[in-house]
């Protein structure tokens, strides 16, 4: 069993020593990110708690395979914060709350899986495709992309971006997870 597998097993088992260590080891990285991105300590704690719960469900129920427990936990928390801040909503985790959090958590759970799928397929593209897609999404003009990636002209860059994007979408659509996560 690798160290990562050992972490996952202890986490799912709710190993007290592991969880104690996890808070000491992983929380402050999340807090630093949230504070840096206009959040508060209280929000950071809520996000961390939500992140852990979603990760538990992803690992236990979805049998999600992850290569690095610490990195993935941070990613989940980071995405949870992006969702919260983009929607301008703050969901507080409270054991005594009467509000059912399951719809919000389920939404994020699905979205995290979609995020995994997009990221995974994007990373599997060739370097030029990856770069051109990232640049277009970063709203860099085709004139600049053309210059940067040495295309003959702006239109050639646009055509290349389109081909890369089409290829990416085909890969995503071909994946079994896509149909599962796709809206009906």
């Amino acid at each position, binding site marked *: 069993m690798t160290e990562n597998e050992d972490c996952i097993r202890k986490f799912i088992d*709710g190993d*007290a020593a592991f*969880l*104690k260590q996890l*808070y*000491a080891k992983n*929380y402050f990285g999340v807090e630093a990110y949230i504070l840096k991105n206009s959040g508060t300590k209280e929000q950071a*704690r809520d996000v*961390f*708690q939500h992140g*852990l*719960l979603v990760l*538990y*469900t992803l690992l*236990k*129920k979805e049998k999600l395979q992850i290569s690095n427990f610490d990195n993935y936990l941070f990613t989940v928390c980071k*995405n949870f914060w*992006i*969702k919260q801040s*983009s*929607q301008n909503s703050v969901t507080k*985790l409270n*054991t005594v709350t009467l509000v*059912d*959090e*399951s*719809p919000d*958590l*389920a*939404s994020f*759970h*699905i*979205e995290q899986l*979609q*995020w995994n799928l*997009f*990221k995974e397929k*994007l990373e599997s593209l060739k370097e030029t495709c990856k770069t051109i*897609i*990232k640049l277009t*999404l970063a*709203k860099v003009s085709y004139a600049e992309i053309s210059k940067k990636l040495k295309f003959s002209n702006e239109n050639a860059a*646009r*055509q290349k971006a*389109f081909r890369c*994007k*089409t290829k*990416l*979408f085909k890969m*995503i*659509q071909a994946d079994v997870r896509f149909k*599962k*996560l*796709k*809206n*009906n």
Partner: protein
Amino acid sequence: MEDFLWELKTERFLKGEMTPEELLDFEQEQKDQPELKEYVTLSKQLQQAISEKDWFAHKNTSKHYHTVQKWYQEVDVLDFKEKLQQHADTAFETEKKTFTLKKYWFPLAAACIALLLTIVYQFTTQPTLDELYTQYGTWNDTPSFIVQDQNTTDIKEKIELLYKNSEYQKCILVADRFLNSATTDKTNVRIYKGFSLVQLHQNSEALQVFKTISESDAIDASKGLWYMALVYLKTEDAKNLQETLKKITALKTNYKYSEALELLETLE
């Protein structure tokens, strides 16, 4: 080629660059062509997945969503949530305590620094003139009149005894009587007179006496400067004190040269 037109339209749609008319047309196109609708949805999701600011904004209606929602209501997930909360209570309480300590650490540290500075100040800062006077202001190094001629010695011995018996007023009267009649050895008697005036806190008069000594052509005239310095020290006249000390330190053979130098360095 038609697909590329989709891309051009999708790009403008996602950037919010379409006119209301174009928007209506494009929405109708999506209804008519499910492939276009999926292309637009995927483009939007890709943008949200890559962005560090946006997140998937649409409500998920997949079958899997309902399965997932049930998972978050199951006992094992709720138990784990409870377990996490317990760990959080401990972890964040510990953090809180740490922060509480931090809260008090700064004033505590500030107090320690202040105390340390006070101690350092006590040992390193310039002493006050009053403290220096306590250290240097001795008026007991009086001259002795043992080797003098009999009569004169009697008067001088009387002056000496009067001073040592703290009869300063009488000492001054006898000293004046001697100084009015004597032609030699006036410096030592003036010293007793000056010292007595100091003891009686008649500092200005004392200064005049010591000034007379300092301006005399006596071999120990520099004693006058040192005693003047002590009076200035006593009266906390720093300016005249420093000027007088500078005069003393101008010549190594001057009385109390080393002490004057030391005192001057302390003051500077």
